[in-house]
């Protein structure tokens, strides 16, 4: 019997590859989607790797929720399944081989997408095996859904209609195509009841995030949704096109997948997992780990990702009211352009869930996480966080004149982009870098003593120069970006006395556009690329890292 089912799987695949329309849907569309994405955003330096979660999810969604039921229903309409039914094979066997064939199609389409992305310059996914696992879970969830759709739809047009009913909401308010952070609160809650966001998050975590350890809930959600779909799809399976769904017995099985969606959403609610991933938030996690030199009372952030101790619901709007009420952070750049230090991604791109911290509410935010307050966080909506007006108090005339009170007044550490995010990320100290990154780090350490920019007399300029070592990989989004900060921080702390360092970092944070950035051109001497980096952006990132280090030096941000 195994042999028969393998043959059926192989035959399904062969027929799929002979069907031009099917090929178009399963292979060409995902690639076109990826290309369109690439072309649209290429000038904004949106890196494909941060969107593989969405791109792969859309591919799977199309293949499993349109391709699979369309094929099944059209075969059923022409009587192929009646013919199968005459054979002495169990229903489950035929469904399994259908699932297997569809899975093979999805995997090959996904590999094609990744290959194209790599051709376009995307680095290889960070955790390939985990990516495969996440991809499989997502495929399973959507194939289950596709099976249910195939049993519910009486004909192919009905599949299309039903598919749109699921596809569009999932894209728009389900966290697949539109970033959760830019959705209204109700939509964020609703999205927890759709599999889309879990799919994106699970895949992204394994593409460029911290791995599957951080998205266990998402995997569980996908597994539950997939299992429910497959069970209901099997129980409701129809062989005969003449039998209408509405006249069928056992329709109650439809409740099973619905119940699974509701259960997953309820679990997410219960575990305060509704909020958008931290990096898309303006606020970091925070309260419990909030700096001892407490931030100004007015800036008391509403905990968004429900910190462990705080019972606050996880549904706080992305921008806490405090953000609007008071300039939370010095505007790092006086230039009148969009005040966020993040470039396009936060505003335009879908949330990169990859970076999302897994069980934030369940486990205390990682120590890395507590944020400090640099210029307004990424994802801040311009409307709500206008460029910060000048602080009421005059800023010190020179860095030497900076007082502790200036820091307390002007910087809010819990509004920094999270370390696990995409802007100014920092790897947890216990995470070992990949071998090649380790090699780069060693090269930097070895090269630093002899690197001219790190030896200039002006301490502010010296610190700026050293910060570029972290800022440039961040702009480039290379693998180095999460690990370079540790080297930079070590160097700065060893090189500059603490009292001076605090003032210097504050100065840089408030004056990111001052001084000289020619050090960026000398980065290749340390063994890494600086090709085509936007100096202004590098300065912004350097300012962010300055605040992150400042928080650590002063104790406002917990070290690990």
């Amino acid at each position: 019997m195994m042999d028969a089912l393998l043959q059926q799987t192989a035959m399904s695949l062969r027929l799929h590859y002979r069907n031009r329309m099917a090929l178009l849907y399963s292979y060409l569309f995902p690639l076109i989607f990826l290309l369109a994405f690439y072309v649209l955003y290429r000038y904004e330096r949106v890196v494909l790797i941060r969107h593989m979660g969405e791109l792969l999810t859309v591919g799977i969604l199309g293949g499993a929720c349109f391709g699979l039921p369309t094929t099944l229903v059209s075969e059923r309409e022409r009587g192929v399944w009646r013919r199968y039914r005459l054979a002495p094979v169990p229903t489950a066997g035929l469904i399994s081989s259908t699932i297997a064939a569809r899975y093979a199609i999805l995997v090959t389409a996904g590999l094609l997408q990744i290959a194209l992305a790599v051709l376009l310059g995307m680095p290889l996914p960070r955790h390939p095996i985990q990516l495969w696992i996440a991809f499989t879970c997502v495929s399973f969830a959507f194939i289950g859904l596709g099976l249910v759709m195939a049993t519910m739809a009486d004909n192919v047009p009905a599949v299309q209609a039903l598919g749109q009913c699921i596809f569009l909401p999932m894209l728009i308010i389900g966290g697949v195509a539109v970033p959760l952070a830019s959705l209204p609160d109700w939509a964020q809650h609703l999205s927890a009841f759709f599999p889309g966001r879990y799919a994106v998050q699970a895949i992204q975590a394994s593409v460029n995030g911290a791995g599957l350890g951080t998205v266990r809930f998402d995997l569980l959600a996908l597994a539950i949704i997939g299992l429910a779909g497959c069970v209901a799809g099997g129980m409701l399976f129809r062989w005969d096109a003449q039998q209408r769904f509405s006249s069928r017995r056992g329709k109650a099985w439809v409740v099973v997948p619905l119940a699974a969606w509701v259960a997953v959403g309820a679990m997410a609610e219960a575990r305060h997992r509704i909020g958008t991933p931290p990096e898309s938030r303006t606020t970091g996690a925070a309260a419990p780990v909030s700096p001892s030199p407490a931030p100004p009372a007015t800036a008391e952030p509403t905990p968004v990702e429900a910190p462990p101790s705080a019972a606050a619901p996880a549904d706080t709007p992305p921008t806490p009211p405090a953000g609007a009420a008071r300039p939370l952070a010095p505007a790092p750049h006086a230039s009148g352009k969009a005040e966020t230090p993040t470039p396009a991604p936060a505003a335009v791109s879908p949330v990169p869930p990859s970076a999302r911290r897994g069980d934030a509410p369940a486990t205390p935010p990682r120590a890395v996480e507590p944020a400090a307050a640099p210029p307004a966080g990424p994802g801040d909506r311009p409307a709500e966080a206008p460029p910060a007006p000048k602080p009421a108090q005059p800023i010190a005339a020179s860095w030497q004149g900076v007082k502790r009170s200036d820091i307390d007044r002007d910087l809010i550490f819990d509004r920094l982009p999270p370390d696990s995010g995409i802007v100014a990320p920092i790897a947890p100290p216990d995470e070992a870098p990949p071998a090649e990154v380790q090699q780069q780090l060693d090269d930097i350490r070895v090269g630093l003593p002899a690197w001219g920019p790190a030896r200039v007399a002006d301490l502010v300029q010296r610190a700026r120069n050293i910060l570029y070592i972290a800022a440039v990989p961040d702009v480039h989004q290379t693998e180095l970006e999460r690990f370079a900060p540790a080297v930079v921080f070590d160097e700065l702390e060893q090189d500059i006395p603490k009292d001076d360092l605090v003032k210097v970092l504050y100065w840089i944070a408030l004056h990111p556009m001052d001084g000289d950035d020619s050090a960026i051109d000398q980065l290749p001497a340390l063994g890494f690329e600086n090709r085509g980096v936007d100096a202004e952006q590098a300065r912004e990132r350097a300012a962010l890292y300055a605040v992150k280090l400042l928080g650590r030096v002063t104790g406002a941000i917990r070290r690990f």
Partner: protein
Amino acid sequence: MEATAAKVVVSDLHKRYGDVRAAQGVSFQIRDGEIFGLLGPNGSGKTTTVECLLGLREPDSGSIAVCGIDARRHPRDARQKLGAALQTTSLQDKITPREALRLFGAFYGHRATPDEMIGRFGLETKADAAFDTLSGGQRQRLALALAFVNRPEVVVLDEPTTGLDPQSRRELHGEIARMKQDGHTVLLTTHYIEEAEQLCDRIAVIDRGRIIATGTPHELIARSSAMQSVSIATAPPLTPADLSQLDGAEDIDVEGARLRFRTTTVGPTLAGLLRLVEARGVEIAELQVRKGTLEDVFLELTGSGAGAGE
């Protein structure tokens, strides 16, 4: 008939869809090596009965045994013994006959090779052509080949000739005759009376979900009131009113230039007819006497003309 020799035994089969009673106590037996016809108008319950037999539908009650296997309790075992060509079988556009035969053969423990079936059903020239390029007749031959791919003990053909052109139909009739020569047991459903009469060893007439008569075509005709039909054309034509005086003439009908009637007493009625012709001074252009046919039986049994002839 001894039950042991029966390949298929269907007893008291009931199936209803909502208010429609598609099968109301259908019972019949098919003997080893015979071609058994289930004859009835559209909607009479033929397909429902066949689908229950094949396990495509779950009957409400009744029992079905195939080669001694309880088909309701062990449908998969029964399917090993059955081969079927369904009314609406169509395959994927791009599958070839060879691939289809290999695929469907793989489902069975006991199977014929694709090449054997391709040769047997004359599909050599189209063995590797996509299904959507096959003609209606070729598709039907492929359906038959698929029905035989597991070397079944019982073959079920559900309205195999419906929608075929005359040429393909003739070929198919030849094929079914060959099945009989080869000793296959075949269940054939049809609403074409002459097809049933020509091909079947025994026939069950089904109407409104019930079997109303079973037997060889001969027995069925003999068992019916065995009327013979007489048609006559004269110049100038006689009128039905003329014939109404004729003793023994029933069901008088005008058929174009001819008059037609039935009778159970051919001799005396014909003599009366000739006397009438002479008395009226008309000339006989044509005179035909026909024995009762299955069609007559069918009409008599079902009281409907549906499906008679083409």
